[in-house]
């Protein structure tokens, strides 16, 4: 099991505010890593810094054995990183099929081939009946699943999920959990930000906790749920009693 992503001392500042403060993180191939922390802890900023949406002020990111520090988003996608967004970013006026095809074109050039891959991915997330629907008309659950399909169509090595379960009903969450398991089984490594603890704890191999931009803990779900610091800053006393 080799190292897929290695982030060293990644730091991102916004005019005096250090949103991400020297964060180190190693992700091994085939793992599911959870990233948790209170609102404003810097989780999404960390995502943006390693995927190239932001240029990190300090630090180094290695991906798949290559130094990708300073590469832009589309280059990182070509290298094998795909992400979903905390706030869904669909191509609203296009059909579900076309949305996913945009992702598929990351690896192929032919329209027919892209269409084939896109249909497979839509099938994979269980939305076959909505292939030709206009995405703006879909509900939030479907839009999130579609965003996953779109990211998967780029054939990533690492899939970064930014709160894919937010705003979904319990049944929909069940569906997404199964989906994430299926993605991992198909060989894709996953880094996920999530606030739905139950889901995150069942899925993750390891969990990293951010608070005020710093990584305050990392470990297996069991280790994290019993970590005093984490309970103090994020999970809350109630969580302790539950255990």
């Amino acid at each position, binding site marked *: 099991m080799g190292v897929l992503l290695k982030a060293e001392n990644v730091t991102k500042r916004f005019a005096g505010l250090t949103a991400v403060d020297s964060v180190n993180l190693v992700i091994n191939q085939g793992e599911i890593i959870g990233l948790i922390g209170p609102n404003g802890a810097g989780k999404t900023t960390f995502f943006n810094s390693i995927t190239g949406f932001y240029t990190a002020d300090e630090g180094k990111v290695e991906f798949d054995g290559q130094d990708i520090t300073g590469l832009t988003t589309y280059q990182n996608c070509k290298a094998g990183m795909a992400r979903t967004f905390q706030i869904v970013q669909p191509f609203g006026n296009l*059909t579900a099929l076309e949305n996913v095809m945009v992702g598929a074109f990351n690896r192929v050039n032919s329209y027919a081939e892209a269409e084939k891959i896109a249909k497979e991915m839509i099938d994979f997330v269980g939305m076959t009946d909505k292939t030709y629907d206009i995405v703006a008309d879909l509900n939030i659950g479907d839009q999130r699943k579609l965003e996953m399909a779109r990211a998967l169509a780029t054939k990533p090595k690492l899939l970064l999920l930014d709160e894919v379960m937010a705003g979904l009903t319990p049944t929909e969450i069940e569906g997404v959990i199964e989906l994430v398991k299926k993605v991992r089984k198909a060989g894709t490594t996953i880094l996920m930000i999530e606030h739905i603890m139950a889901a995150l704890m069942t899925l993750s191999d390891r969990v990293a906790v951010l608070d005020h931009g710093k990584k305050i803990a990392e470990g297996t779900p069991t280790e994290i749920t019993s970590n005093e610091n984490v309970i103090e800053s994020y999970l809350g006393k109630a969580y302790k009693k539950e255990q």
Partner: protein
Amino acid sequence: MEKKNTGTLSPLLKRGINTTSGGMSRLQIIIVLAVSIFVLLTPQFLSSYRLNLVITILTAAYFAQCWNLMSGFTGQFSFGHAAFYGVGAYMSSILSVDYGVNPWIGMLAGMLAAGIVAAIIGYLSFHYNLRGDYFALATMAFCEILRVITKNTEFFHASTGVTISYSKDWKQMQFGGKEGYLYVAFIMLAAITFGLYKIRKTKIGLYFVAIRENEDAAKALGINAFRYKMTALIASAMLTALAGTFYAQYYLYIDPTICFGNSVSVSAITPCIIGGTGTIFGPIIGAAIIEPISELTNALLSQYVGLNMVVYGLILVLAILLMPNGVVGLFHKLRAKKQKGE
């Protein structure tokens, strides 16, 4: 889940979006063929004055399609498309009048020059990440710069304008009677429309539309947005230059305002807004509606200076209010309503 708007023009751009990338229905093909045949037969029964209107519609539609490629499809709202139009017109005219270069070669030189101008505008704007309204304003400013330069430079005949000699020879890119120009304009429009129709079903076409819909998402999916925006802009500019050369060779006179005026830039946009931005046939439908209206108001209200513009503006406002997605959007809406009713 609401997308953030990059500016106030953006909603204007988001409307009238072509969603169907599927093929044309049999009825659509029949309509297109029938209209084409009708247009090609107009020289047989229309007077020269009326033919002029048909040519105006065809060239306006062509110009609008050029704009549609980068603004309707790729979402980079240009408010200064006259820049490329003017470069095309001036390049071929100056070369032929002052240097005796054949207008056909001048046309190619104009396309090249417009491409270079577009590359400069695009590089400066996209490199510094100008989006939405800010990009539109930048294009407008560049266009105005070109107008002022042309107006004040003897090399470009300053404000006197350039008069092209009449020769009636196709080798000099003049096609004798009106029908010659009509056929050429028709071919230009048919070619660009067919091109847009085809490109929509390719990787590059889908990438263009994806950038319009959501540039951040497009980048995250491996699209080099800068490169594709540049491609759309340069292609659009080069095709627009062709329209400029055509204009110069048809009316045989150009000046800085005719070429680089704001109203020229606007005339690239209005057919799209009326007909449906980002659709394949919207700009043609729009041109067929707006050009006769503009001609009519000019003729009927000529004694009241400026009133024709008031009427024109009013029609535009009404069109935007009543048909926010253009004529094509209205059709889609009516069809959807009908399907729901059944």
